[in-house]
């Protein structure tokens, strides 16, 4: 009893029949491939994310979901295809009427649209929470020290850490460190935020405070968000779309209520059942 396949764009992304006007996507993966040796981690991936859209990426381990974020953040290089951010190619640049591999300068410019929060926070341990949030705005954006301090202070207040600005990462709990990391990424005023399993390294009782912050920035900021997560409840409530990755491809995607409520693929059903059983 299979439902008829959803109409798709040339890129393979299902179109939403209710979506009348088509806007330029904020992120576009176009036939992107990534290999480690002989292993294809990402296989001819086409993915479009609209401005301000919140996309949750789920899937079994080794399915390539984290790699998608790492390719977008240029922590890994792509082998095939191209990635576009806000209408500009991140991986290529125009030259002599064609496209060539982007040089470092081009990558840095386009990459400035993207911020990322990591599973293991990756805060700078030799800097206080405030300094962590001031470092890049001063050095990359050229903010003055007082301006950067003000911006960092406001963001740390927004994540509920105004009393911890002078603390070093080792003096903070995992949840607090992750909130500093979110503030640090936001201080660069990105248009796109990537969250890579940001609650996976936290004690269960600290997960809520981090998800609360993400929920808040999702509603208060105009941000396109991509998150790799194991928190199915959060993905269901927060995301506009859920992509289920399997074998380096999107095996199934759709609105959360659809994907969690009535998944079409057997592989998706099996994954969701396993996750539910695990608790």
């Amino acid at each position: 009893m299979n439902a008829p396949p959803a109409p798709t764009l040339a890129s393979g992304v299902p179109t939403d029949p209710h979506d009348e006007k088509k806007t330029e996507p904020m992120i576009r993966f176009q036939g992107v491939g990534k290999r480690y040796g002989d292993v294809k981690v990402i296989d001819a991936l086409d993915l479009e994310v609209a401005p301000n859209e919140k996309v949750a990426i789920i899937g079994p381990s080794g399915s390539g979901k984290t790699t998608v974020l790492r390719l977008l953040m240029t922590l890994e290089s792509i082998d095939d295809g191209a990635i576009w951010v806000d209408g500009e190619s991140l991986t290529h640049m125009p030259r002599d009427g064609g496209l060539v591999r982007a040089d470092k300068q081009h990558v840095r410019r386009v990459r400035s649209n993207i911020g990322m929060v990591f599973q293991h926070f990756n805060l700078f341990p030799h800097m206080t929470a405030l300094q962590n949030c001031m470092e890049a705005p001063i050095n990359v954006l050229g903010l003055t020290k007082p301006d950067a301090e003000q911006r960092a202070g406001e963001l740390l207040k927004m994540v509920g850490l105004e009393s911890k600005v002078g603390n070093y990462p080792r003096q903070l709990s995992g949840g607090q460190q992750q909130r500093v990391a979110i503030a640090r990424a936001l201080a660069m005023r990105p248009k796109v935020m990537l969250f890579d399993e940001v609650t996976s390294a936290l004690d269960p009782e600290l997960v809520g405070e981090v998800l609360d912050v993400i929920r808040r920035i999702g509603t208060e900021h105009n941000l396109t968000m991509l998150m790799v997560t194991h928190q199915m409840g959060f993905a269901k409530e927060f995301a506009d779309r859920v992509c289920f990755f399997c074998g380096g491809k999107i095996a199934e995607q759709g609105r959360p209520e659809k994907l969690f409520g009535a998944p079409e693929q057997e592989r998706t059903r099996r994954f969701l059942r396993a996750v539910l059983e695990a608790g």
Partner: protein
Amino acid sequence: MLFDLHYTATILPLLAQASLVTLKATLLGFLLATTLGLALAILRMAPSRWLRWSVTGLVEFIRSTPLLIQIFFLYFVLPEAGINLDALTAGVLALGLHYGAYCSEVYRAGFEGLPKGQWEACTALNMSPLATWKNIIIPQAIPPIVPALGNYLVALFKETPLLSAIAVLELMQTAKILGSESFRYVEPITLVGLFFLVFSLVSAFLIRWVERYLNHR
């Protein structure tokens, strides 16, 4: 009497003066070694494969040849190419180059010991390579390697007598001259040994102090 205290008192001022040359060669040599070592270590992690290989080759070459030969080369061979260095400069350069190669390995271990996430955070924040190295990587990599760098300071210091081979008037050379003039070697050589012992112990103490300071910051 085997040890002549009166003679000791007369040569002490001369040896004290020579010890200043030893200290000068040590400190300048170590300053050069730590600076050069840092530069070599950073270059060994450069994106260009050719640069990495060239620098690795240079470091291995310097480490695999004796310091004495390097000292001789700088002092006696370079003049053939029109480069004339005075003895102390040649000595300091040789010490700095030789120990710079060793220090570069220590720095490299320090850099490689940092979690990959630190580099990735810098990329995600779009930081330039310069800011990444200067503000994030180097400040974190140095404190753990202070003891290893300290060992090289003491080792370099104890190799300064090699400079006597090109007639730098440091402690050993002065002691040798005093001995050949008076035919008494016991006092000058003993005093030189004592000086090295005391300075090495003081250095070790200072290094431990710096280490503790950096760890408790």
